[in-house]
């Protein structure tokens, strides 16, 4: 779960919902201090927008106009809790929380690959301009469970089926591009192979030395 790869800029997948957002404000602050043309990006879901850290981070980030992008992947579900049970705002309007902090809001359909790409570019540009951070609101859909093996007893099976059939971003992109089957199959198998190779690599790994548990407690 806790994947970090500092070399590619991944500062960790946080097990605490909204726990990593302040750190992104701080990283962006550091870029600002050092004059580096970089942005710091936080990814989180609709559930995270209720946490104190989210609000404090947006407040401080906007106050100091740090080069940060707060990406809200809003699929309307916080684990098993639908948005109507966790937020007083209508689920489609969750992005407006940015406005409470005077922050720039960019909203797009999260299932449209090209739109998302363009929105991300725009967010980055805005953040780097010194005008302040951006809340990038991607309205999306959760096509699987919260975790692998989640039976989703709390979800309408019909609705889930419908979404799978109509909201798959890869399918949507493929039909817009009018991609021939062979080409699609080729890309698909290439990606599948890469993923499976990674899984095999992980499975074949050896156990760590138990005493390494103490290795990185302190720098």
């Amino acid at each position, binding site marked *: 779960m806790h994947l*970090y790869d500092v070399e590619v800029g991944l500062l960790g997948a946080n097990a605490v919902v909204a*726990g990593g957002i302040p750190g992104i404000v*701080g*990283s962006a602050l*550091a870029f600002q201090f050092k004059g580096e043309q970089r942005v710091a990006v936080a990814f989180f879901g609709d559930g995270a927008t209720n946490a104190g850290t989210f609000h404090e981070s947006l407040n401080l980030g906007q106050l100091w106009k740090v080069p940060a992008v707060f990406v809200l992947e809003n699929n309307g579900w916080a684990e098993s809790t639908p948005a109507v049970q966790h937020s007083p705002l209508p689920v489609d309007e969750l992005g407006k929380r940015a406005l409470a902090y005077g922050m720039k809001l960019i909203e797009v359909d999260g299932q449209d690959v090209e739109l998302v790409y363009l929105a991300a570019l725009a967010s980055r540009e805005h953040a780097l301009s010194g005008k302040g951070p951006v809340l990038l609101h991607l309205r999306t859909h959760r096509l699987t469970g919260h975790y692998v093996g989640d039976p989703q007893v709390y979800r309408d099976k019909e609705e889930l089926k419908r979404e799978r059939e109509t909201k798959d971003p890869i399918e949507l992109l493929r039909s817009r591009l009018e991609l021939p089957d062979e080409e699609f199959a080729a890309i698909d198998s290439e990606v599948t192979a890469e993923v499976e190779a990674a899984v095999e690599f992980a499975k074949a790994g050896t156990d760590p030395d138990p005493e390494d548990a103490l290795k*990185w407690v302190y720098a």
Partner: protein
Amino acid sequence: MPEVTYREAVRDALSRALREDEGVFLMGEDIAEMGGSMAVTQGLLEEFGAKRIRNTPISEMAIVGTAIGAAMQGMRPIVEIMYEDFLTLSMEQLVNQAAKHRTMSGGQLKVPLTIRTQGGAGWSPGAQHAQQLEAWFVHVPGLKVVFASTPEDVRGLLWTAIHDDNPVVFFEHRTLYPVKGEVPDELEPIPLGKARIHREGTDVTVIATGRLVHEALQAAEEAEKDGISVEVVDPRTLLPLDEEAIVASVRKTTRCVTAHEAVTRAGFGAELAAIVQHGAFDWLDAPIERVGARFAPLPFAPVMEQWVVPHAADVLDAVRRTVARA
């Protein structure tokens, strides 16, 4: 040797660090124009400017979390948390994030963050403005905890804490801010994890922190009149702890008293007692005594506050109990 107050000693360490390293900056509530609620950061805004001496909203989670982020990117932020009671608001970031990033990233990240805070009773601040919570942080792998009690120690240790690549929770004591003490002309960094023996003795070791170091020294003077020779040891760094020095002292005296202003139950004295019991078991000639506050939220009424919080007389009583006869 020049004499400075504890407060001036802290400011001195901060100033020197700010001067020498561009990556050092301060964040906290009211630390800029006002110079901090304890007047520690007075003058720093003028010298270093608003970019590096930053007032923040009342937002402890974001303050600490932002500092964590900046630290991960190689800067050396110093956060001032106005009262250590408010550390509770930042616990999630301090405990779940700052303390964990290095381990969870397999050594890829480090968090060279310093959190300065203060606490201390004696002026009717009430239950939410005077807690002593250092024991909570000693319990978190990944953090370091410092609690200096003299101007010389606070200056030398703060310098080291700022330059340590780990998150350090640096406790100051409110009532010690105006206390004067001699400091070397040049700032001498004091290593973390080294105790200081303030007074040598042969009959009982008192391990004290913060304000209680001074109370213990007073109690030692009194005890001397009764022919009881008291050794006073200040661990200075609570995590990592100088276990060797502490155990050696008790092996020498055969009796031990721990003393802190924090509540006795599950306080740092309990950890000290466990370490001493184990390291000096066959040398102990009396049960280990713990001195600390009574188990109640700190009262506002002065007479009640006085009664709840420990003083020199309590240390003296504990000393006497260790050498008592039937």
